[in-house]
């Protein structure tokens, strides 16, 4: 091997934790096979590897569990995959402090298990996020429905340790939940898609595992009606932890097969089941038993008043099943061509977005499925077509660009958060940069002047 990158990496790690040549193929990013894949075990090793990459001008792609590598533009280059799976320890967990320090490579599921043994959890529930690593979740700042109550990692990270593009290790924040010492560097790195530094450690605030988890599921004939219920809940002093709207918009607000996009199994078996609508509003409640019990009826009443066709109280396995049904939107679709777009609007505009998605689906011969964290106004639209090849790509791109254009007109945010690489080569998955892009470009230039960290993948080609 005469690749200096590989040689120097091997000096740092030894051969056992380094892949190169054909062995690196499984770690191809958007079709690009890296020159080396390294699995460091310590922060020092990460720093040394970045130092080498920096010196050699090698492009570095941080890699947690690899669950979200299809987010963003294809990278400009991919020389070194920095796999963080061996940095997977819980460094500290003090239940009385409701905080923990963890290494970035720990999987969310493993972390929750460790914390759960002592009655606490990291209040983050990204769909199908069990395998994802904390570092990856922080870099993408993805979250699940319970963000309505708990926020995202942005709100939970209280301290951070990163390795900069030149291999310098720095930290920000600290170990306490209330801390305004210096700039809030946590916010800089969380959600920066690994383009400014590699996250190696995180200090997070935790929450107690709720004694009871439950939900009220209502079915509605239209997103408008479901919004009516949501609106009533948003105006009330009730404290649900999540508000999810699921369904499959069709052009006439109509009734495509309910199980396909609408009511998951078990929902819709309530008193007016036969007439159940295709839209499901899943309202999560959790906490001490008496708190959950006290909120169920008022939520029930608000949904009924808004026109719910059926109502089901969910708990235990039924709740898990309903949440899993929502999660199917995050599974790799079997359709030949597809894309999942995420749009952020104000909550009141979610019904309109459903209508727009339906219209675009009809126009371009696609199916569209929707899962909206409607209380936050964050809507995921899965576009699918049975057509393959360029025809399929054309259709999905046309519909996705239609959503992007609508979002631009609404001051809404847009990203195509997952799609086959063929699509992402043809169309920018990010919304157009705005007035603040100058600052973002400045940050990239300041923190990664050589452009070696995830080059070209982020918004505006950062």
């Amino acid at each position, binding site marked *: 091997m005469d690749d200096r990158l590989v040689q120097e990496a091997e000096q740092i790690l030894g051969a056992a934790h380094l892949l190169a040549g054909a062995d690196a193929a499984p770690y191809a990013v958007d079709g690009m096979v890296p020159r080396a894949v390294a699995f460091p075990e310590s922060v020092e090793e990460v720093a040394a590897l970045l130092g080498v990459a920096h010196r050699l001008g090698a492009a570095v792609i941080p890699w947690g569990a690899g669950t979200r590598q299809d987010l963003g533009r294809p990278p400009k280059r991919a020389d070194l995959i920095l796999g963080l799976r061996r940095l997977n320890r819980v460094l500290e967990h*003090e239940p*009385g*402090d409701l905080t923990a320090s963890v290494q970035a490579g720990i999987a969310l599921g493993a972390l929750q298990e460790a914390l759960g043994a002592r009655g606490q959890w990291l209040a983050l529930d990204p769909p199908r996020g069990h395998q994802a690593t904390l570092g990856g979740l922080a870099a993408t700042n993805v979250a699940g429905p319970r963000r309505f109550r708990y*926020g*995202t990692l*942005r*709100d939970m990270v209280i301290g951070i340790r990163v390795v900069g593009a030149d291999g*310098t290790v*720095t*930290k*920000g924040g*600290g*170990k*306490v*939940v*209330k801390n*305004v*010492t*210096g*700039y*809030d*560097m946590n*916010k800089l790195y*969380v*959600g*920066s898609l690994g383009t*400014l530094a590699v996250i190696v450690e995180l200090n997070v605030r935790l*929450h*107690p*595992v709720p004694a009871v988890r439950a939900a009220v599921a209502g079915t509605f004939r239209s997103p408008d009606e479901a919004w009516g219920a949501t609106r009533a809940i*948003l*105006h*009330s*002093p*009730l*404290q649900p932890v999540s508000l999810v709207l699921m369904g499959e918009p069709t052009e006439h607000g109509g009734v495509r097969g309910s199980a396909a996009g609408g009511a998951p199994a078990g929902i819709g078996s309530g008193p007016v089941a036969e007439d159940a609508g295709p839209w499901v509003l899943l309202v999560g409640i959790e906490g*001490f038993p*008496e*708190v959950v*019990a*006290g*909120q169920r009826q008022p939520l029930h009443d608000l949904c009924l008043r808004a026109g719910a066709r059926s109502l089901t109280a969910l708990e235990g396995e039924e709740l898990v099943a309903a949440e899993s049904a929502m999660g199917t939107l995050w599974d790799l679709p079997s359709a030949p061509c597809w894309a999942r777009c995420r749009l*952020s609007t*104000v909550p*009141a505009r979610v019904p309109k977005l459903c209508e727009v998605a339906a219209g675009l689906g009809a126009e371009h011969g696609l199916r569209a499925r929707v899962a909206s964290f409607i209380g936050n*106004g*964050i809507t995921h639209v899965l576009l699918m077509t049975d057509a393959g090849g360029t025809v399929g790509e054309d259709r999905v791109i046309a519909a996705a660009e239609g959503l992007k254009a609508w979002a631009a007109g609404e*001051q809404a*945010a*847009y*990203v195509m958060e997952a799609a086959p690489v063929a699509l992402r080569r043809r169309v920018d998955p990010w919304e157009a*940069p705005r*007035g*603040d*892009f100058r600052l*973002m470009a400045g*940050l990239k230039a*300041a*923190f990664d002047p050589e452009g070696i960290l995830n080059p070209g993948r*982020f918004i505006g080609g950062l």
Partner: protein
Amino acid sequence: MVEARIVRELTALLGPERVVGDPHDLIVYECDGLTLERATPGVVVLPETAEEVARIVKIAHREQLPFVARGAGTGLSGGCLDLGGGIIISMARMDRILEVDFDSRLAMVEPGLVNLWLTNAVSKHGFLYAPDPSSQSACTIGGNVAENSGGPHTLKYGTTTNHVLGLEVVLPDGEIVWLGGRVQDRPGYDLTGVFVGSEGTFGIATKVVVRLLPAPEAVLTMLGVFETMDDAGNTVSQIIREGIVPAALEIMDQLTTQAVEDYIHAGYPRDAGAVLLVELDGPRAGMALQADRITRICRENHAREVRIAKDDEERQKLWKGRKSAFGAYGRITPNFYVMDGVVPRTRLPEILRQIEEIGARHGLRIANVFHAGDGNLHPMVLYDGRIPEQTSRALQCGEEILRACVDLGGALTGEHGIGVEKQNFMPMMFSPADLAAMERLKQVFSPDNLCNPGKIFPNPSHHGETTQRMPGIPGGAWI
């Protein structure tokens, strides 16, 4: 001094009512709530629109004059001092609520709006703005954004940064841009997140989009009375460990309760070693059971009395007592110096013992009242500034207390900010590389370093030069 032609230009832009240039007037702008540090500004201007702010900043940029935004001047770290003899841009006149959208649970406000006025305006619709620094009846939202302000209820609701969705800002070169906005999760770097808490060094916010929350259905306030601070501190940790997250958990020591009782008779016992104030809020259902759990935990930690405020009047009185603590100190000591350290909450008993030792070593009394739920301490070093060595000993105490906080895994400041007050303590927490990364971040926003220069970062030559220390006046505090 700012040159007369520049003052004339500013006056032509804003009119004489909105430019303060008389040296006899300017002295009132030489400090904020922290009177220990003073610096007289060159000129003070009061814009009313973002465009006016932009034009002022452009003038400053053109003339390479330093400038700093000021809200109500209630800050406690000297954050809005004009160290460079340039322009103070008072945002106080930009105090309107521009939009309220309950469907989206948000409001768009101008930065000079008084914090409490926002809650007052939305409360009749059943909403509130959650961050409630104790100065909320006077401090401004813009100041809260600069300092990432907290308050007694951050335990449950988080600090300002968790409640700001977007900002319109005037950058240090005078350009107006939006960071974030009404919608969540906009792709790109979290510029809103880094701006909040940047202590006015990244630019000037001219519009702020904040979250509104529905007011809780019920609120319940409890008082636990303990013989020792240790027992009160342990109670706090156990409450948290048992999965209860109250809206607020506040502890006062005996020195404080006695001062408060002498002053306003809030109903605290004078002979207790510590009192713990617990506030629960949320759905009415189950609140009584929560209170029972807390009562049990207090008893298990040897509380000699646990009391639930029976009506709103008693509740208000207890809180008034808590919030008057600093005013009350003003009556038992000629001077006091307030700290704002943080420790992990399980280390509270330990830090309190250390604080006592530090006080004893320097021969000074130190009172404690603090946000126990967050581990955010406000030790109050009592001293007499007329005795020269007492002032330096008080400052020495402060430094030692903060060092102890950091050594226990804590932080230099939980809500007051670094400002000029603690800039030279930054190396206690951050390495040169950490600070260099922060400096790099600042350079992106403020390459000319004209926007509130001289703050946050260590500056060993600073004290006694750019600002004048003023030990004769009690350090202001309302926390």
